[in-house]
Structure formats: C-alpha cells, structure tokens
C-alpha cells in the first residue's frame, strides 16, 4: 500500500514535469468540449442559402417563394434567370438547392393542365442537403394543396372536410428524446467523448512508454518491489483520477450547464464516466503490453482512436455497414460508450439493456491483466533503441 502511494507520487511528479500532460489532460479536453458545443450551438442549421428560378413570376409563385423564405432552415438569397445559372451557383457553393417554376406554371394550374415544378438539392453536404430538401418538398406540396384547397372552399366544403380530403392520413412524428432535432445534442455527445477517449489511449501508452525511453523503468520496478501489479496500478492511479475529473467535468458541462437531455439520470452518468475512463486506460495499457515500445503502441492507439469516430456508428449507423465491420465495431471501447449513453442516459432504459456493453467496458478495463507479465519483462529487460 505504501509502495502504491509512493509510485503514485512519483507519477505525479513525472506528470508535473512534462508539459504534454498539462496540454493533453487539460487544455485539449477543454478545447474540444468548447469547440464542438460552440460550433453547433445553433442546434439545427438555420436560414441556409437557397435560390429560386422563377420564370413564371406570378403572385402564386411569389407567395411560395416567400413561404420558402419563411421556413426555419432556408433563406432565399437569390433569384436566377435560368436553371443553368442556378446550377452553377450550386457548384460554386453559393446555394444548397433551388426551386424551379417554369413559364405558365400558374396559368396551367388554374386551367387544370398539371404544370410541372421541380426542386434541385444536393447531398454533397448531407446536413444542409437533408434540411433544404425537407423545406423544398414542403413548399411544393403546399403549392399543390393550396390550389385544391381554394377550389374546394369555393365549392362550399368546410375546413375539416377539406383537410380530411387532402390529407386523410396524418403522420405524427415523435422525435423521442430530442424534440428539437438538435444536432448539438446528437453529435457533441459522441464527438467530445471520442476525442477524450482517444487522448486517454494515447497518453496512457505515452506514460507507459516514456519509462522505457527515459530509462526509468527499472527504477519503477524496484520501487514496486518487483511486483508488476503494484507498479502498474500505482502508475496509473494519478492518470485515472485526473481523467475521471476531466470526463466528469465534460459530463457536468454538457448535462448540467448546457442541459442536454439526460432522462437516464446522474447515477448512470457517473457510472459511465468511471467505467469509460477505466476502459480507456485499460486499453492503452493493453496496447502497450502487446507492443512494448513507445512509438508502436502510440501509433496503434492513434489509429484505433481515429477509427473510433467512424466505428462508433453515430453518424453512419453500424447496422448499415458490412457484417464483418459490425462485428469489429465491438473492439472499439467508444462503441460501447455510445450505446450505454444512448440507451440509458439519452433514453431512460434499464441498465440491463446494456449489460453486455458494460461487461465489454469492464473487460477493456481488465485487459492489462493479460499482458502484465509482458510489461514486466519489457520494463526489466528492454533497452530503448535509438
């Protein structure tokens, strides 16, 4: 026990002496948290630029244009004289989509000759494409319904009858847990923890490897009285403590200060904080144990960490990936972090639903056990090359 504390103290001194620890444990986590949450503070992109090609130019088409302008996601920034020029504006990135009224749209509409209206949008940028698409679709549907509505009310139908005719089946959409469809809530809660876990992987491998590089490993083993468990636990204790505080601070900031929805409650949040830090440190140590060299273990940790952003499956769902990838996703701690968050914090499901994910994180945390002897041998025998 005494040895444990001495090694922990020694580690604290090492951490204080190297500015990389200050940067990676404090500055970068604060930066990524502030960066992502402030970047998407709007929640959902509003008033994105769209264009109109109005060759008809009647009160009807102008009314629809005004309507489109008034929608949340779109703002009509330009009128183009032809589809050609609107298309070029899209290629330059000036607008994300446009609505096209050909000549005689209104005349044909009134004469029941079914005019043809089109809207163009691009999924070259997915978020803007999807939102602009929704607005363009709504406005053109309303244009179609508007005519029918005025005809029917002229015939003397009541509003209820008209609605029941125009839209017999109505869809009530419930976006459970995120009624604003807020992208900040959706993305920041994945991106920031993934960055944090990446930093934990790297810094753990860094701390383990620096013992070799600085030729202090034998000193560490001696301080632990030759017991590799004491050496490892003592060394990682300060790291775990700092990371729990950092991860906790992120949780408090997003759920406490920014009030992101967390119907699952603080109990699960605390559990996930502790568990994810332990799993990430465990993963870092495990990788170092597999490849007991500073640069190789760090390289693997960075490759793993960067892939986590994709394999977590928030932006592009894991169920849409090829089957081998669906299986491989399980060897990324972040994947389990996300599933626990999504199931038991973002939604209020019982922990038993994510029992396997919790078990996986525990396994990651326990992974160093499998390589501890390798680490011990490396610390005793390895000579840093170059």
């Amino acid at each position: 026990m005494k040895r444990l504390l001495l090694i922990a103290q020694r580690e604290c001194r090492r951490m204080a002496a190297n500015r990389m620890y200050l940067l990676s444990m404090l500055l970068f986590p604060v930066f990524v948290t502030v960066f992502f949450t402030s970047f998407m503070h709007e929640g959902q992109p509003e008033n994105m630029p769209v264009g109109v090609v109005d060759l008809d130019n009647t009160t009807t088409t102008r009314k629809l244009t005004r309507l489109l302008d008034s929608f949340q996601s779109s703002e009509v920034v330009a009128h183009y004289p032809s589809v050609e020029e609107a298309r070029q504006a899209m290629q330059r990135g000036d607008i994300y989509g446009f609505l096209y009224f050909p000549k005689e749209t209104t005349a044909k509409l009134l004469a029941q000759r079914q005019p043809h209206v089109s809207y163009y949008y691009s999924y070259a940028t997915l978020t803007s494409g999807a939102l602009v698409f929704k607005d363009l679709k709504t406005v053109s549907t309303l244009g179609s319904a508007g005519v029918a509505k005025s005809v029917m009310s002229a015939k003397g139908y009541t509003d209820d009858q008209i609605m029941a005719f125009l839209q017999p089946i109505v869809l009530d959409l419930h976006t459970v847990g995120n009624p604003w469809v807020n992208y900040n809530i959706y993305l920041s809660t994945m991106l920031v923890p993934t960055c944090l876990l990446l930093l934990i992987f790297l810094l753990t491998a860094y701390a383990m490897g620096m013992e070799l590089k600085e030729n202090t490993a034998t000193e560490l083993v001696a301080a632990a009285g030759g017991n590799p468990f004491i050496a490892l636990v003592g060394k990682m204790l300060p790291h775990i403590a700092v990371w729990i505080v950092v991860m906790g601070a992120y949780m408090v900031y997003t759920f406490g200060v920014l009030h992101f929805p967390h119907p699952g409650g603080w109990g699960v949040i605390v559990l996930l904080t502790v568990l994810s830090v332990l799993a990430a440190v465990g993963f870092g140590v495990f990788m170092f144990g597999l490849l007991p060299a500073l640069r190789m273990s760090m390289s693997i940790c960075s490759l793993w960490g960067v892939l986590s952003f994709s394999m977590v499956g928030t932006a592009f769902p894991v169920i849409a990936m090829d089957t081998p990838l669906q299986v491989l996703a399980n060897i990324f701690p972040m994947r389990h972090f996300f599933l626990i968050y999504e199931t038991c914090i973002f939604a209020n499901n019982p922990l038993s639903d994510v029992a396997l994910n919790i078990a996986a994180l525990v396994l990651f945390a326990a992974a160093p056990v499998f390589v501890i002897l390798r680490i011990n041998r490396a610390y005793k025998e390895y000579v840093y090359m170059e």
Partner: protein
Amino acid sequence: MTIKKIHTFWEDTAKVWLHEHLEMFRDEGALLFVILLPLAYPLLYSWIYNNEVVREVPVAVVDCSNSATSREFVRHVDASPDVMVAERCTSLEEATRLVGKHKVYGVVYLPTDFDTRLNRMEQAHVSVYCNMGLMLTYKAIFQTCTAVAADMNSGIQIRLSGNKTNREDELTTAPLSITDVPMFNNTSGYGNFILPAVLVLILQQILLLGIGITYGTSYEKNRFLRIRPMLDRRFGLARIMVGRTMGFLVLFMLIAAWVILAVPRLFHFVQLIHFGDFLLFTFPYLLACIFFAITFSFFVRRREDVMLLVVFTSVPFLFLSGISWPKSNVPELWHYVSWLIPSSFGIQGFVKLNTLGATFSDILPEIKGLWMQTVVYGVLASLVTYWQVKGSKQETE
C-alpha cells in the same frame, strides 16, 4: 562561375532532399504514417462507408386498428427499401422495450380508430416514434412513412372523388406535378458526402504527423547538424528549403494521386474532377500543407509528442472545413480560425471540383486562400528551418 553556383545549389538541394527521405524511410514510426497510413486508411474508410445508405431499418409496429387499411399501411412500410417491419407488438410499452434493446430503431403506432376515422371521412393519425440517437435511421423511417402516407392518401382521394378518367385522377391527386432532383451525390449517400473530405484531410494529417515525427527525431538527435554547413553558403536557407519542400512534394504528389484520384475510382464514389484540375489544385494544397507542417514542427521537441498534438485535431479540422456542418452556418469566430488551416480551403475546393463538378475558375477563392497560406506558412517555415538548422550547431559547440 554562375553556372557553377547554380550547379552547387542544385547539388545541395538534392542532398537535402535525399537526407530528408533517408531520415523518413529509416524511421519505422514515420514510415508507418507516411506510407502505410495513406495506403490503408482510404481503403478502410471506403469500406466502412461503401454501403452509402441505410436500408431495411428495423421498426416495430403497434397496430391497434387491425383493419384492412392499417394492414395495408404496414405492408407498404415493410415493402419500402429503407424500412423493415421487424416486430409486431400489442402495446407501445412493449415496443419501447424493443427500442431499448436495439432490436428496432423506431415504432409505428396505428390507433384503434384509424380505419373508423377514415371511413367517417375524418383525419386519421399515425404516430411515428424515432430513436434520435441515430440521425440516418430517423431519416429513413420518417421519410418512408411520409411517402407511404402520401401514396395511400392519393388512393383515398381517387376513391372519394369519383372521377371518370385516369387523367382526372392524376389531376385530383397532383394538380401540380413535382419532381425532386438530387444533384451531384448520385446515391444520396453518406460515403459520397464524407469521403472526399476525409481523403483530403488525410493528406494534411499525414504530412503533419510525418514531418512532425521526422523533425522531432532530428531535433532530439541533433541531426539537423548534417545539413548545417549548407546554411552558411550563398542562398543557404533557400538550398535547404527547396530541398526539403521538393522531397515532400514529389512523394506526396504520388500519394495524393492514390488517395484522391485512385481510391474514389476503386470504390465507385462520385468523381468529376479532371486530371489538369487535380494538378492545379493539389500543387498549392500540398505546398500549403508542407509549410504548415514544417511550421508546426517548431512545437515538437520529442517525436512522441506529435501524436498527442495532431491526432485529436482531425475531427475539429473536418468541422472547420464546413462539410459536416454547412459552411454558411459556421460561427463567425470559427470561420476565421478555419482560414489558418490548409484543409479548410482544401476540402471545400476539392469537394467542389470532385463532387459538384465545378470548373477550376469556380474554386478560385479557395485556390487564392491556399496560395496565401503557402506564402505565409512558407515564410514561417523558412524561419523555423533556419532556427532548427542554426540551433543545431550551438548545442554541439
């Protein structure tokens, strides 16, 4: 005499070039990042995103109406390409449990009075509950249900209006015919959207890592000393800078051709870029990245620090480029910050050339940005180089 000077200039340049390459290729760490990563990562990402869209998202159906119409609704939802009816439940509670267990990603609820109301000529409601943890499954479920409802609504309208001809039916259901045209991204897929940006970003990040690791090592081992003598000759700094830049530029032109020309073609992603435009674009982009990376190497005193400094920046850089989050809606402060990073202009420029099929003149603003970065970071990189090489002597004295 002049010719001889020019001759030694090129000789020195070539020496530096060779020296840098040897440094990099001798170092497994740097080699891993500079050669293996650009070879393997684009393939890996292409594999991950190759399915482009989400198909057959499982949903649970709670059909309390249990009528011919409600069953028709469910059948249509199931028959759609994007959604699959995986479970049928008797209550919302039961369905919610399935969402928690990730058996389904949404619930379609048809109330008891669904058919009754339709027959009474009242509006009937269908409730759709989506798991908002995943945006693409939400989109798939919501858009499918909207389309099914619209389709069935047309059928009901036709039945009610008692038209005589098909043309009349068409006019009743669609007095205004509407076409939606998704442009450029032909699959409306995730891969076509994110991959070009990721590929361009990879080039910058491997340069940061590769140059950072190589120079970090050189700094630690005081290896800049080997090129120290050149600094004292006429145009000494220029000799070193040209050598350094050329070394990376030639190597990375080849890597860039693989990463952003060959990979999208292999996986059949959208590719509208012309080879000439590729050269005109890649040249300033790589120059800006190389100088940016050399400038950055000033902050690297130990080779291992590079990974801690660079790796986590990838996703913030991706956001700064205005692809993940629309460029028009990037907050002002971060918009200015994005000017500091070559990938911001690089990704915008490349996506326009590659995905939107823009001509070179359309991306002149981005190209100007890249050349400005090249100049600014070029000056900074020269200062850093001077400091690195000059400093190396003092330590040995």
